[in-house]
């Protein structure tokens, strides 16, 4: 269902970005990149709220003709961005939410790896397969 999944570091550079191979990869890069503007905006708006009670899920960042971009930010300001096909109307907000949660836990696993250097690109195979499963589910 997801056509592109990206993990973006606190400093707004990508730790991981993967998209369906059939589409133009660069397009998604642009899309995710520009969506960061919205993410930043939302985070700064949320900054006033209490940190603990902050909702990690950012919701729909912005819709385009073909895709919807959803965002999620961890407490350490690592951003997850997911691009889904907007034609897929069956997808509910809750499902997106659970997908992000899955992504988050998988990312936590990656960070727990003592051989992973925080700030490096994610090359974990487990993470990769999880993302693949998320992308394949519907497509």
């Amino acid at each position: 269902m997801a056509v592109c999944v990206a993990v973006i570091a606190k400093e707004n550079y990508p730790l991981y970005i993967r998209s369906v191979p059939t589409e133009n990869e660069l397009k998604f890069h642009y899309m995710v990149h520009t969506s960061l503007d919205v993410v930043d905006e939302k985070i700064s708006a949320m900054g006033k709220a209490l940190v603990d009670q902050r909702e990690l899920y950012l919701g729909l960042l912005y819709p385009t003709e073909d895709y919807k971009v959803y965002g999620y930010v961890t407490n350490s300001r690592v951003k997850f961005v997911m691009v889904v096909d907007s034609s897929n109307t069956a997808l509910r907000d809750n499902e997106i939410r659970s997908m992000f949660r899955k992504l988050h836990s998988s990312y936590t696993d990656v960070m727990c790896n003592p051989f992973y250097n925080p700030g490096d690109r994610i090359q974990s195979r487990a993470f990769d397969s999880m993302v693949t499963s998320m992308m394949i589910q519907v497509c």
Partner: protein
Amino acid sequence: MRKHVGDLCLQAGMLQDSLVHYHMSVELLRSVNDFLWLGAALEGLCSASVIYHYPAGTGGKTGARRCQGSSLPAEAANRHRPGAQEVLIDPGALTTNGINPDTSAEIGRAKNCLSPEDIIDKYKEAISYYSKYKNAGVIELEACVKAVRVLAIQKRSMEASEFLQNAVYINLRQLSEEEKIQRYSILSELYELIGFHRKSAFFKRVAAMQCVAPSISEPGWRACYKLLLETLPGYSLSLDPKDFNKGTHRGWAAVQMRLLHELVYASRRMGNPALSVRHLSFLLQTMLDFLSDQEKKDVTQSLENYTSKCPGTMELITLPDGLVLPPVPFTKLPIVRRVKLLNLPASLRPQKMKSLLNQNVSTKSPFIYSPIIAHNRGEERNKKIDFQWVQGDVCEVQLMVYNPMPFELRVENMGLLTSGVEFESLPAALSLPAESGLYPVTLVGVPQTTGTITVNGYHTTVFGVFSDCLLDNLPGIKTSGSTVEVIPALPRLQISTSLPRSAHSLQPSSGDEISTNVSVQLYNGETQQLVIKLENIGMEPLEKLEVTSKILTTKEKLYGDFLSWKLEETVAQFPLQPGKVATFIVNIKVKLDFSCQENLLQDLSDDGISVSGFPLCSPFRQVVRPRAESKPVNPPEGSKPGDPSHVKTLEAILNFKYSGGPGHVEGYYRNLSLGLHVEVEPSVFFTRVSTLPATSTRQCHLLLDVFNSTEHELTVSARSNEELVLHAGECQRMAIQVDKFNFESFPASPGEKGQFASSEQLEEERQEARGLEINSKLDVRWRIPSLKRTGEASVEGLLNQLVLEHLQLAPLQWDVLVDGQPCDCEAAACRVGDPVRLEVRLTNRSPRSVGPFALTVVPFQDHQNGVHNYDLHNAVSFVGSSTFYLDAVQPLGQSACLGALLFLYTGDFFLHIRFHEDSRSKELPPSWFCLPSVHVRALEAQA
């Protein structure tokens, strides 16, 4: 209509009135469902409210416009698309002309004016109304733009972005390309305004692409390039490669790469190849990690194409709009991991004279130790290396590089960047295999002046791009200092020898580094000349030369000088101008121990009865010494030496210290070492040494068992010119008649007078001196005719105390005179019946008085079969007493006693003169009382 009245009021600056009119028109229009007009009226209402709320204007640059321009839509439209405005706005305006303004409803000011939230709501409403008309797209866009501006003031970026998002989808059909570009630029500008830099960059890039869209007949590459450059900050991309040196690259590589590619393309189409080369090299340098192999190939391919037209330089490129593009050095092509300045080779390393060095140290500080100075020095040392380079000599710097590219990398013109000293860098070209491991590269150069040189970096030409890479900017580089002192020029010496070079290197224990090694094989005792050619291959005259030698410690005992030379002849040829050759001759003399084995030396006590080939026939053989009781059984003669083929090696180092030119003035010299490796093959061995007294007391026979351990026939000759031919592996005895030595007169004896602490040492020295003396007298030489090699043999090592004692001339010299003639070796003839006068004379050379002595003459006959017949009372009678008495003899005194003998029969008689046991002083060595035997041949009395 009210709307038009509102417009006019707004234009006239009557805010209150316009607000009232707008409100009324909105009410009216809602009822008639004229959405276009309704939208316009709402927009007008919003505009008026905005003016009311934000008298300063919505944007910094548009502030003035808002105040003076009452007709906001028209104004905005004017700015964005002057052509379209007339067509779309004016019709609406014209239709309102006929409606009379209704001023009846007076609405309160506070009520009429919209609150900031309401403005946005109204805008939304207006836009939604506009969107119902396809041809109202432009107005809709304008309304969006205006709403965004208002929101930007209200800092409500999220909502603003929604408006903008909407604006993007507004379909404008009949837009020219130029308008499209403008539209995108404005969008980008607005995004910038609300703080969405990435979005802004995105639209700017789209605008740039629109500039060069294929549908445009005259692509505006210049504009495109300009717009692209403006997008760079949005993609957090800086064109300064220095920003990329810090750690790993962080950013949107794929997006950035795309942008760079576009920049390259645009700049190329702009007709500025230098610019495109710069961008391309930047792309290669910074994005190397993200490029796939194929992309790497493509990028380098195109880079090479560009550089063939315009080589990449290290100059700053300044764009017309003031942007400066810094140079891009290829620090990753190849990647340098380590930089190490190499010392000169050992033979060329300059060394400082000791005395001058001390001076330097002392002038540095008046204190012996100061912690402050020590601290400073420590810091200095971080960078400075403790060796020197020499002016005019090729100096080397080693770089460990590797090639990250998937293909062979050709690096040309690789040289050093230095400062401090004029340095002539000799560029090198190298080609690194694909994805090579660490690869050592040596860059060379010649310092032209003296001083302190600092290696700052290196320069390369890769794919036609020149780059200057400074070491300071390189990440992850290991360097062990980059500053070296350059001292004045010194001459250079090259050595060539008459001997073949050897691959055999000396043991490194010596600490010296040997530049050349020569080896030679010699037989023990052989002497060879080593001709060394000294060539000055430097640029400075050679003025000074010192030669020292060092023999590496061996277990072998070495006799005589191993290496000897005369330096004067060589020095006479100095100063040696560049290119000239001087010769220097060294004599190599190998004299190792000629004794065969330690245990064989014990056989010296052997009296040598089984003499073979005794050249000098001594008529009687006398046992001089009692045989050693526990003498081991002699091994068979032929197989005596334990390991005759054992080759011994001698190693030595010849050190040439030389200096000249300006470096000499500064007190520097160079050291050149020549390693000498000598393999010593055994030539002859003396397996046994013994002495036999000769007939004369002043002489004696030295018996040497000579063993030929070579594989060739060998002749041995001694001083007396007798040649003894020895076949391979043969052992023969050789007797040499030698005069006895008067060791007391040797210069070694002064040692006796000195207070030598160790008597053993003294004794050793004396013995050595004696050995030397004996050897020089003996002069034993061997010759291998088949190889035409000669040498000498030394007996020094095998003479022991016993032998020496026998060879020593006794301080008491006994002379026996028969008939007044000294009787030493030949038989004295006498007649039967005649009395024979016998005189025994004693000369005392010892430093003290000796005697008195009593001597008895005992005649006997030797039957030549080992039987001595002493029963000669009937044959010999004494005239007078058979016993002689000698008085005490003072030092240097002489004493004589006379007697007579009468031989009654003919025959060969021997007289043995014996001491009376009691008269002999015990403290004197027995060899002092060695009297010659007298041989008397009694002949038939003549008639």
